[in-house]
């Protein structure tokens, strides 16, 4: 039975690991739905869950590459804090919100500074040989201190009106029509690339999936996309019948996932990250510039942390110097729950997003149940251990 099922998955071309995670997520959702008397899977809560997931989700895509390359980044929460404070300060006090382009400039500067902060850490790891654990632990302190220094700890507010949309507040979604257009375009793109890839493989004479398997997978993905759009459109703005649609931060997450997936699958850089994590010596002997790749992943992580900072400040409509505190743990947990192996060489972007959704679902569900924040921390801590233990067991069984 189990064997037949895994053969079936193989025909479909989906990894058993991903399927088991999806099943785990489904179980978690159903249990929480039941415990919260039907609140958890309401359109309203799923909308909030989607928005909450975007911050951790975006950073977890970068953490995948970091961990795949056998490093770790403990500084991402603080990095979010300092870039967020910088963006908020520039926007509110330097450019001021009367300036219509100030928010754009503040974003641009924030992204660059995030990249430079990442480069700084990558430099110490790659060129000076200090373990990433120490460099980024120092970064955790250093960037948190810097976040305070930006305004001496004062909260800065408000943000520009247009900028606030990026946080997914009341108007921060694209409405029903655009959401449907988005969904249909997504389905069209999916069909196009699936068929194109199939066509090219056939041209080379490589084996391809059976046609029914290909169509079944297309149908499942299309259905999930449509379902997602439908749920986002079922949540209305307060006291109206106007659908909200897909929140902008979720669009940013989707964009990030697409870009990061392309980087891991279709670029030399991505391939080299996996080679390095798999066997650093082999990567070096193959002529790969390990130092440059290492700096590259940290720069990427810095930029992703500032994207997360943009969403956070836009959502809060303020810069608060404690933003992002302890987020590094959620981000690492998301990557690891999503199947990224701490031994290096293994990890996927979609897995990490699924991991982020699982983490956020647990947190969101416990809030709905009125669980205290201290108890939530305890639960998340235990989940993290279980996830890594599962990874260890899974890898043992595979050998």
């Amino acid at each position, binding site marked *: 039975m189990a064997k037949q099922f895994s053969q079936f998955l193989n025909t479909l071309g989906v990894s058993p690991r991903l399927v088991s995670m999806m099943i785990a997520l489904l179980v978690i959702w159903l249990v929480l739905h039941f415990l919260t008397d039907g609140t958890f899977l309401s359109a309203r809560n799923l909308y909030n869950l989607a928005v909450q997931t975007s911050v951790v989700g975006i950073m977890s895509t970068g953490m995948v590459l970091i961990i795949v390359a056998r490093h770790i980044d403990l500084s991402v929460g603080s990095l979010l804090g300092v870039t967020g404070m910088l963006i908020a300060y520039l926007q509110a006090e330097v450019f001021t919100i009367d300036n219509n382009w100030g928010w754009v400039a503040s974003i641009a500067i924030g992204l660059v500074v995030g990249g430079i902060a990442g480069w700084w850490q990558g430099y110490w790891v790659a060129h000076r040989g200090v373990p990433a654990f120490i460099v980024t632990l120092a970064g955790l302190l250093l960037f948190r201190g810097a976040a305070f220094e930006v305004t001496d700890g004062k909260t800065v507010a408000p943000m520009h009106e247009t900028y606030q949309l990026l946080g997914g507040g009341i108007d921060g979604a694209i409405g029903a029509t655009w959401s449907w257009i988005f969904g249909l375009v997504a389905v069209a793109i999916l069909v196009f690339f699936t068929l194109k890839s199939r066509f090219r493989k056939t041209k*080379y004479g490589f084996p391809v999936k059976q046609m029914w398997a290909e169509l079944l997978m297309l149908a499942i993905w299309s259905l999930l996309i449509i379902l997602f759009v439908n749920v986002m459109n079922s949540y209305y703005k307060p006291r109206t019948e106007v659908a909200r649609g897909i929140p902008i931060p979720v669009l940013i997450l989707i964009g990030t996932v697409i870009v990061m997936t392309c980087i891991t*699958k279709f*670029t*030399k850089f991505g*391939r080299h990250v996996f080679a390095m994590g798999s*066997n650093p010596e082999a990567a070096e002997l193959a002529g790969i510039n390990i130092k440059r790749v290492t700096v590259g992943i940290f720069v990427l992580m810095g930029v992703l942390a500032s994207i997360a900072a943009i969403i956070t400040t836009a959502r809060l409509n303020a810069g608060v110097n404690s933003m992002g505190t302890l987020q590094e743990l959620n981000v690492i947990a998301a990557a690891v729950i999503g199947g990224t192996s701490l031994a290096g060489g293994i990890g996927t972007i979609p897995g990490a997003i699924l991991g982020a959704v699982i983490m956020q679902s647990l947190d969101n569900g416990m809030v709905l149940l009125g669980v205290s924040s201290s108890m939530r921390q305890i639960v998340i801590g235990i989940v993290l251990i279980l996830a890594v233990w599962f990874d260890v067991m899974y890898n043992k069984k595979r050998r």
Partner: protein
Amino acid sequence: MNQTPLVEMKDIVKTFGGVHAVDHASVDLYPGEVVGVLGHNGAGKSTLMKMLSGAYVKDSGQILINGEEVTIESPRDAQDLGIETIYQTLALADHLDATANLFLGREKTTAWGALDDNLMEAETRKVLHRLNPRFKNIKTEVGALSGGQRQSVAIGRAIYFDAKILIMDEPTAALGMQETAAVADLIQQLKKDNLGIFLISHDIHDIFDLCDRICVMKAGKVIGTRKISEVTKDDVLSMIIMA
């Protein structure tokens, strides 16, 4: 032979801490020739070859390719000079498949700059088929392959890129009889294509079947170079043992 040697390594020294891994060693190699590098474990064979393949940088000495002095400071430098290496450890990335390993560091890209996995896979299938017609698991991560198949991937990587100089560090160590024979055939073929090959091996039969000359090392020094036609197996064994 009056032609210029393909490779001349002169007076090469490499120390690790206080250990003289290679101690004023000199070897040369002509086109179409197989030179066997022999010696006990720890004699310095791998280290000497790694300075040619760019894995280590020599402390002193000269390396000449086609009569011209070259600087080899990285594997990339060596690759650019047409030097390819099959390492004793194979140097494969276990979580990647055969295609990714074969093209590692030298990936083919499309006009858009994206990895051209289809093209690379097609080439990989060709090369591996030539080495081992029964090789099927082209999509499997190489960590899950048998020793022989892993070796095929490592050898495939070395011959795909039109090497002029090939270094084979115990290439048949993990192979069965049939696969060893296939490697021997391959070496004969590459010789005809005028490649120069350094072959490190412990198998005295392999050495006698394949090599034109041998070079025996002990404690980092080259203690003798002989034409294979001028020695017997016993001569060679006693050179290695007595030294």
